[in-house]
């Protein structure tokens, strides 16, 4: 049971509590309430379906940002074995908001990179809320270039409110670091699979987002600006974020319809944070299939196809 309950999840919570109480009561008193419990559990399933299949973009935004949603390190543990973290940009610092290294995916060596948000305030302070500094992006670049040398596929997990906007980040060329990644990822001679697992926030997300396949988890978002930021600019009112979330078409299903992403990975009912393992299973199946396809294409073709995909955006 997650600690943080979103507004639209509250009816579920009440029902879950009632079922738990009933079970306890039945157990304590030795009464058979199986029929009643069964009815309530069916009701719960239906309610879940009803709620989670009809989420608004703003509700999905909240799920995408849920503090207990698995972060890159959680997925590294669930998806890979032998994870070896590699650190530093060899120039300035190591960025805890963006991690990476080498691991095995079903036995095959891969390079893994990803943003890391914390699950609580302490972790978030340590991870800068998943907002990388330039050295984070430069570390990612170093690691994917290493992947290219050793012909390892890259798995990139995206989950960030955006690149950090501190004064130091500006001093050390935040924009330069992001642009360099877009430039270099686009020509990298090894397969890159990008999965947006939570919040795909603008340039900070895109800096890990150029690849051969761009997938999104069902309840993740991908946007050029935060709904709050958009509402502030449009209507000078950040409270109208839900409206902006709809206007921005930032959900996985909408982006798939628009042809901007290649696939949506389903989450178990209730969202990734209620079932990290089930979510990881879905991701694993998708990676397996995509890797198999990509590894049959030679590097030159891969890079040419990567360019064609980008070239076609907007339909010209």
């Amino acid at each position, binding site marked *: 049971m997650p600690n943080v309950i979103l507004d639209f999840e509250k009816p579920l919570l009440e029902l879950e509590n009632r079922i738990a109480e009933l079970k306890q009561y039945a157990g304590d008193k030795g009464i058979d309430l199986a029929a009643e419990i069964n009815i309530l559990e069916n009701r719960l399933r239906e309610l879940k379906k009803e709620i989670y299949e009809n989420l608004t973009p703003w509700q999905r935004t909240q799920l995408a940002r849920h503090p207990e949603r698995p972060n890159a390190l959680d997925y590294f543990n669930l998806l890979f074995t032998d994870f070896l973290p590699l650190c530093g940009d060899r120039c300035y610092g190591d960025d805890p908001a963006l991690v990476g290294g080498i691991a095995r995916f079903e036995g095959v060596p891969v390079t893994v990179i990803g943003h890391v948000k914390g699950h609580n305030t302490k972790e978030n302070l340590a991870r800068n809320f998943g907002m990388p500094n330039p050295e984070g992006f430069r570390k990612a670049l170093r690691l994917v270039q290493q992947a290219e040398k050793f012909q390892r596929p890259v798995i990139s997990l995206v989950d960030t409110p955006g690149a950090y906007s501190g004064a130091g980040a500006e001093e050390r060329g935040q924009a330069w670091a992001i642009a360099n990644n877009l430039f270099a990822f686009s020509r990298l001679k090894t397969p890159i699979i990008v999965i947006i697992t939570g919040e795909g926030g603008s340039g900070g997300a895109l800096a890990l987002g150029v690849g051969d396949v761009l997938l999104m988890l069902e309840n993740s978002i991908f946007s*050029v600006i935060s709904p709050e930021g958009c509402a502030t600019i449009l209507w000078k009112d950040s409270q109208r974020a839900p409206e902006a979330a709809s206007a*921005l078409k930032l959900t996985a299903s909408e982006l798939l319809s628009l042809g901007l992403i290649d696939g949506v990975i389903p989450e178990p009912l209730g969202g990734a944070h209620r079932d990290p393992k089930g979510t990881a299973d879905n991701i694993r199946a998708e990676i397996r299939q995509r890797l198999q396809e990509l590894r049959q294409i030679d590097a030159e073709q891969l890079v040419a196809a990567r360019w064609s995909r980008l070239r076609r955006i907007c339909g010209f």
Partner: protein
Amino acid sequence: MLKDLFRKQKRYITVQPGTAPEHEEEKEPLWIKCPDCGEILYVRELEKGLKVCSKCRYHFRLSAPERIAATVDDNTFQELDGDLKAVDPLSFPAYRSKLSSAEQETGMRDAILTGQGAIEGRPVLIGVLEPNFIMGSMGCIVGEKITRLVERAIKSKLPVILFSASGGARMQEGVFSLMQMAKTSAAIARLHEAGILYVSVLTDPTTGGVLASFATLGDIILAEPGALIGFAGRRVTEQTLKEKLPPDFQTAEFCFNHGLIDLIVPRNEMRQILAQILSLHSERG
């Protein structure tokens, strides 16, 4: 349409002398106050000086046609893809009307003007963002026109110069606009592999998704003095820090001091420096 642009432009720039329709001048203000030093400047004098304040050297913003006129040789500019018109892929609230008024105000169909011209006789492919068209923001058309310009450069082996002046990505085009960062950067990567020169010139303001893509990928990066150049909006950054930032924060000078750009070039020297760069790249070493 191009003709209209140049008619408009000629009222502002006297690099190409003589042909401005005199009767239109009545509509223009005669005097303007320098926002930096407060000096009252005679508009015709200001325009003669490429819109640089004669007292404090403050660089007023140039429209895209003004920039073209100030940069390329007379009568050499040929616009490319001028027919491409802004799109509204998300049916975003109020975007169409915003586009209409931007088009009316600037006479442009989106925030960029691209074409082929010559600088001191050397042919070049040039693109200029229009700061007055929805803050020079980059959506599908800006990304597409830059990409086409770059593709033409790869085919023709001509060098590319891009002048940036932009508030960043065009929010109203959502992820379509975000992906233009990737698209233009990937186009520049192909240009790089083809061994072709790309000079990026950052002018006031160059920020956000434009700065974080093609604008910072030049073989050589120049900037105009005093230009606002930064990734995050200054207000965002101040909120993040909850402290005051240095006075030159996110200026061309700040970027130069932090090793991010090659040179700061005053506007009255820009043409000559670009010509020198083109010349130095016109033959193999």
